[in-house]
C-alpha cells in the first residue's frame, strides 16, 4: 500500500515536471527565436529545425549532458549533476512530497521547499539564476536573511508567554536543550577532523549545529549568514527532524526517566497578569541589547510580534503577522530554500554528514533538557515532571504536545501541555541566544 502511494506520488512529481519542462521549453525556444531573428534569421529545412529543437529540450539535457554547461550561478556543472544527479533529485523530491502530503510532515514548509527543488533542477530554464524566479526570491529574502526574521515576527505574534511567566524557572530547561546545538558543534568538528569523510570549516560546523535548536527560521538565518552553500541541506534536515519530533523524542525521554518520574503531577500554574505579558518582550529586548546585540535581529522581531499581540490595541497588525504575512513569507521561504536543492549543490557527501549531525543534535538537545529537568526536580520544592525538559528544544508547539502525549500515556489525565509550553518558548529564546553567540564569534 505504502509502496503504491509512493509510486503514485512519484508519478505525480514527474507529470508536474514534464508539464513545467514543456512550459519552460516553450519560453526558451521563444527566447532563442528572438535572438536568432536579431542575428538575421536563416532559412533551414524542417529536418534541421527538428534537430535544433531537440537540442533545446530537457530530454536531451538530461540524457546527453554536455561538458561545460553552466548552472544559474555561472558555475560549470558536472556531467553527473546534469544527468543522473537530476534524476536522483527528482526521486528525493518525490519522497519529500510523499512525506509532506501523505505523512503530514511539516507540509507547510516541506511542500514549497520540495517544489522549489523541483523547479531548481529543471535543465536549461535556469530558474535559480539572478533573473529566474527562484533566484529572484532567493536574493530578495534569503541571501540577506530577511524572510526568517519575518517568520519570527509571526511566531512571536502567535506565542503566549503566560506559561513561562507563571513558572519562570522552567526557562532553564530551554537553556539546557541548547546543549544540542553546542554538543553537535563538537560532533561536527570531530566528524570532519577525525573521519575525513567531510571537510567542514568551523563556520560550516556552527551553521549545521544550529539544527539542534530545532528552530527552522533560526537555522535558515544562521545558515545563510555563515554557510550559504549548505543552506538547502540544513533547512531540509531541520524541517524533516522537526517533523520527526514525535518519533525521535519519546524513546529518549523514556530511556532517561523512571516510571515514577514520568507520572509526577505538576501543580497548576497561577494566572498571569496582562501587564506582565506586555512587559516581557521589552524585558527580553533589554537583556538582548545589554548582553548580546548580535541576537537582536531574531529576538527583536520575535519580541515585536509578541508585543503587538499583547498590547491588545493593534489586533489588525498582529492578526496580519500571524496569518497572511507569515503565509506569504512561508511560500517565498520554501521556494527560496528549495532553489538550493539543485543537484550540483545538494548531492554532495556533506549533505549526508549534515543529516547525521542534525539527528545527533536533536537527540542531544532532548536528552540535555530531560536530564536538567531531573536535576531540577530533585532540588526544587515543587514537583517537576522531567518529561517537560524535552520541550526545551524549541520546535513550538510540537515538542510540548509530544511531552503531553507521553505524560498522559504514563498516567491518564495528567495534562502536561501548559507546563511544557514554558520550556518550549524559552527554547525559542535560548536558541536565538545561541545563534547570537555563534554570530558574534565569527564577526
Amino acid at each position, binding site marked *: 500500500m505504502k509502496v503504491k502511494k509512493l509510486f503514485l506520488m512519484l508519478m505525480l512529481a514527474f507529470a508536474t515536471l514534464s508539464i513545467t519542462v514543456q512550459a519552460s521549453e516553450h519560453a526558451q525556444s521563444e527566447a532563442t527565436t528572438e535572438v536568432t531573428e536579431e542575428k538575421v534569421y536563416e532559412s533551414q529545412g524542417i529536418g534541421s529545425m527538428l534537430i535544433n529543437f531537440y537540442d533545446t529540450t530537457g530530454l536531451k539535457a538530461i540524457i546527453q549532458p554536455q561538458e561545460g554547461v553552466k548552472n544559474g550561478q555561472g558555475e560549470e556543472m558536472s556531467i553527473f549533476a546534469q544527468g543522473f544527479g537530476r534524476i536522483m533529485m527528482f526521486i528525493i523530491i518525490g519522497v519529500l512530497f510523499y512525506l509532506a502530503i501523505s505523512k503530514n510532515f511539516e507540509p507547510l514548509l516541506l511542500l514549497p521547499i520540495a517544489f522549489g527543488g523541483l523547479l531548481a533542477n529543471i535543465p536549461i530554464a535556469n530558474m535559480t539564476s539572478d533573473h529566474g524566479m527562484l533566484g529572484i526570491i532567493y536574493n530578495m529574502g534569503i541571501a540577506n536573511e530577511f524572510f526568517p526574521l519575518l517568520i519570527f515576527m509571526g511566531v512571536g505574534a502567535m506565542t503566549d508567554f503566560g506559561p513561562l*511567566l507563571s513558572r519562570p524557572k522552567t526557562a532553564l530547561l530551554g537553556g539546557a536543550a541548547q546543549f544540542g546545538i553546542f554538543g553537535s558543534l*563538537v560532533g561536527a568538528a570531530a566528524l570532519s577532523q577525525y573521519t575525513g569523510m567531510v571537510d567542514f570549516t568551523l563556520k560550516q560546523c556552527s551553521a549545521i549545529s544550529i539544527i539542534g535548536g530545532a528552530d527552522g527560521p533560526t537555522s535558515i538565518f544562521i545558515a545563510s549568514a555563515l554557510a550559504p552553500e549548505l543552506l538547502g541541506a540544513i533547512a531540509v534536515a531541520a524541517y524533516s527532524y522537526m517533523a520527526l519530533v514525535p518519533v525521535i523524542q519519546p524513546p529518549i525521554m523514556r530511556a532517561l526517566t523512571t516510571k515514577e518520574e514520568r507520572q509526577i503531577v505538576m501543580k497548576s500554574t497561577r494566572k498571569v497578569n496582562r501587564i506582565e505579558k506586555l*512587559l516581557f518582550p521589552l524585558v527580553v529586548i533589554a537583556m538582548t541589547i545589554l548582553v548580546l546585540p548580535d541576537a537582536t535581529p531574531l529576538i527583536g522581531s520575535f519580541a515585536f510580534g509578541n508585543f503587538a499581540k499583547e498590547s491588545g490595541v493593534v489586533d489588525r497588525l498582529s492578526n496580519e503577522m500571524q496569518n497572511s504575512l507569515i503565509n506569504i513569507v512561508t511560500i517565498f521561504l520554501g521556494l527560496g530554500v528549495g532553489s538550493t536543492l539543485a543537484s550540483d549543490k545538494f548531492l554532495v557527501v556533506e549533505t549526508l554528514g549534515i543529516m547525521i549531525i542534525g539527528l545527533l543534535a536533536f537527540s542531544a538537545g532532548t536528552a540535555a533538557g530531560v536530564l536538567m529537568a531531573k536535576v531540577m526536580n530533585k532540588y526544587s520544592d515543587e514537583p517537576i515532571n522531567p518529561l517537560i525538559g524535552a520541550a526545551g528544544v524549541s520546535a513550538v508547539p510540537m515538542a510540548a504536545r509530544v511531552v503531553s502525549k507521553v505524560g498522559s500515556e504514563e498516567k491518564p489525565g495528567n495534562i502536561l501541555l501548559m507546563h511544557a509550553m514554558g520550556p518550549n518558548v524559552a527554547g525559542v529564546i535560548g536558541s536565538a541566544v545561541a545563534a547570537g553567540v555563534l554570530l558574534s564569534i565569527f564577526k
Partner: protein
Amino acid sequence: MEEIHLVSEALKFMVLGMIVVFIFLVVLVQLMKVQAKLVGKYFPEKKPVTKPTVQATDEKARTAAIIAAITEFNKNKS
C-alpha cells in the same frame, strides 16, 4: 594562517555558548520574578465582575420570546 584544531575550538565555543545561554536565561528568570512581584504590587489585576448565570437564562428566555413572537406573526400572516 596556522592550522586550527577544530575540535578544541568547537569545545571552546560550547563552553562560551552554554555559559552565555545560561546567564541570559538565569537573569531572565530573576527579572521575571521581580517583574511578577512589582506588577502584583502596583497593578493588581481587578477581579473581573462575573455576572451570575441568570443573564444566560435571561438571554435564552428572550430568544425564546422572540422565536415565539415570530412564529405567531408568521401564523397570522398566513
